[in-house]
């Protein structure tokens, strides 16, 4: 199917030029001295008193060209590595990082509680079992380790490493990415060169909108580029609050922040793999919340896909998401709306599946429902194949008026060519009643239980595991 353009080529150009104007005229407040020094050395105009940095268009355009149009993402299982390209179909990652988990019990009662270290591993394991997922995001936070003498992020990533085999965008604490690099090195027998060539982690670098780069942002970019990890240059603008009320204006601020991030990344390490990323949406001015399941979010994500294509830089955006507090009609509708637009716009990667409550709650059941929806959306994205075989003129002649196509060999050969739901029901109502009247959430609940009990994640080599454990132990000793 042809790429959906929510922004035409001339719209993309207009947004790019407006973002350049913002960077040249208004600039970005850069709180970190080192970052200001780097930007000054590379031709930016820096006002040390206000900490505002103004970016010349020529520098921005040069840095955009330094971003690789494609790169390969890998995790500990190299067989599952995936080549990412700005003009390829969209991949999927689960949602992260939640602070709550929604659980169904066997009677269908839904409850929500704070997430723990055990949830991190379980959620990662379920994502690992699903082939629709090309990479992961740290699914939830080990709140039970918060404020203890354990390094929360190192323990979280250790759990993810045990239970997940693909690349992930990980929620490290600023200043701790050297532990990520040590994890990677452990898999390559201590070989730094190999670890630099095969980073397991993408690092999100979100600015603080509007137009501010804080110390956290700076630390992440410095560390990620040092270890050659892909950086997600994320705009997270809220229309009407941290950005203009108009979607186009939101995009101008967000793109200005994303491309200014790219400037810093490419100044530090030219050619560093970089995503142009978005988690932008509206502040619902009536509800007072950042809405994640709204059409504006879908449009912003789709627009970023178009901008990624315009820049020839892979995009990493918000995909199937919802503001619903539970698994219901709202979550179903909003997930498809926010999933299908960026998918048809051919973003490179999205996050979102498994999420409820505007990005706060992770639900294993919702993840499995989303997985089923992804299969359907991908099927739709593939479009309709029109050729001599599929036009079927000879088969139509063979069957003739009043016949049927069921017994044709070509029909039998193409049974698996149809869309087949895994969770959703297409049976008749009597069969559904006979099977216990289970809605999608309850079917997903049973599937989740089965995965947790029976799915086996590829184990980690014993020696490597020992090294990983040693890194965790060492990290805990550092206060």
């Amino acid at each position, binding site marked *: 199917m042809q790429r959906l353009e929510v922004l035409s080529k001339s719209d993309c150009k207009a947004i790019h030029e407006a973002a350049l104007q913002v960077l040249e005229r208004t600039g970005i407040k850069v709180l970190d001295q080192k970052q200001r020094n780097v930007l000054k050395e590379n031709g930016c105009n820096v006002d040390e008193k206000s900490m505002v940095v103004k970016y010349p268009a020529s520098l921005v355009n040069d840095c955009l060209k330094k971003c690789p149009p494609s790169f390969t993402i890998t995790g500990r299982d190299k067989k599952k590595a995936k080549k990412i390209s700005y003009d390829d179909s969209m991949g999927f990652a689960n949602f992260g990082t939640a602070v709550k988990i929604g659980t169904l019990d066997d009677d269908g009662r839904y409850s929500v509680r704070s997430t723990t270290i055990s949830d991190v591993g379980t959620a990662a394991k379920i994502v690992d079992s699903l082939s629709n997922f090309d990479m992961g995001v740290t699914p939830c936070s080990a709140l039970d380790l918060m404020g203890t003498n354990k390094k929360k992020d190192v323990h979280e990533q250790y759990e993810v490493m045990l239970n997940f085999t693909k690349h992930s965008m990980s929620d490290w604490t600023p200043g701790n990415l050297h532990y990520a690099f040590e994890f990677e090195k452990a898999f390559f027998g201590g070989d730094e060169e190999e670890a630099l060539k095969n980073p397991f982690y993408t690092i999100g670098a979100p600015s603080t909108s509007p137009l501010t780069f804080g110390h956290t942002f700076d630390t992440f970019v410095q560390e990620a580029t040092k270890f050659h990890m892909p950086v997600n240059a994320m705009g997270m603008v809220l229309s009407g609050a941290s950005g203009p009320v108009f979607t186009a204006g939101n995009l101008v601020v967000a793109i200005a922040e994303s491309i200014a991030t790219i400037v810093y990344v490419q100044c530090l390490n030219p050619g560093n793999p970089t995503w142009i990323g978005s988690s932008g949406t509206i502040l619902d001015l009536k509800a*007072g919340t950042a809405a994640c399941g709204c059409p504006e979010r879908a449009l912003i994500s789709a627009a970023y896909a178009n901008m990624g294509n315009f820049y020839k830089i892979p995009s990493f955006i918000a995909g199937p998401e919802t503001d619903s507090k539970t698994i219901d009609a709202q979550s179903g509708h909003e997930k498809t709306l926010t999933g299908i637009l960026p998918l048809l716009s051919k973003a490179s990667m999205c996050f979102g599946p498994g999420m409820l409550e505007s990005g706060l709650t992770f639900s294993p059941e919702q993840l499995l429902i989303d997985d089923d929806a992804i299969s359907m959306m991908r099927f739709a994205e593939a479009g309709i194949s029109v050729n001599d075989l599929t036009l079927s003129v000879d088969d139509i002649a063979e069957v003739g008026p009043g016949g049927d196509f069921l017994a044709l060999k070509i029909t039998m050969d193409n049974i698996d060519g149809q869309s087949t739901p895994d969770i959703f029901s297409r049976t008749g109502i009597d069969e559904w009643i006979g099977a216990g009247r289970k809605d999608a959430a309850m079917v997903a609940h049973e599937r989740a239980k089965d995965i947790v009990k029976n799915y086996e994640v590829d184990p980690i080599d014993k020696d490597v595991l020992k090294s990983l454990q040693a890194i965790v132990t060492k990290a805990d000793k550092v206060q």
Partner: protein
Amino acid sequence: MAYDQKASAEVAKEAIAAKVDLVNLIQEGYTAGIQEVGDLYQAKKLFLPHIMSAANAMNAGVNLLTPELEKSGKSAGEGLGKFVICTIEGDIHSIGKDIVAIMLKVAGFNVVNMGRDIPVKDIVAAVKNEKPKAVGTSALMTSTMVNQKTFEELLKEEGVRDKVITNIGGAPCTQQWCDEIGADVYSENATDCVNKMVAKVKG
């Protein structure tokens, strides 16, 4: 409603020049006006942009009147009491916190907005110096949320924990987190904060 900052400042200047009762002007004029906007907000007839614009208009006048009042040793009153608010150490997200600050002001608190990325020790110092009825801290990231716990601990160490009501908020915060760290009030959003804190200080 005009939400006119310029006109608001003009009224303040005229009042100062005419030597009218400034306390009365604040209470019956500016405060009454913002409270009307606040009531309409609660009734969902007006929304965040209205209340933020109204607050800006009010501040344009009140900021001119306050130094005049101080010169004459008067004050417009403490209302529901002093409320210190900030975004906690390590976190520079301030929009949500600023909305809460405005809403608390509208509700009648004397709000001291310390800003963003405020070191925990500075918030404790503000509790000691300003002697507020309540202190609110906001965190938007799990990596900074932990500082809300540190804050609770430092208040205890410094012997002032029982002198102040602590309030926490920000997207990753929950009632469970509030209970775990021993904070007094968790608020999900600005309206929730106002409702709970007004009830709390009124006992």
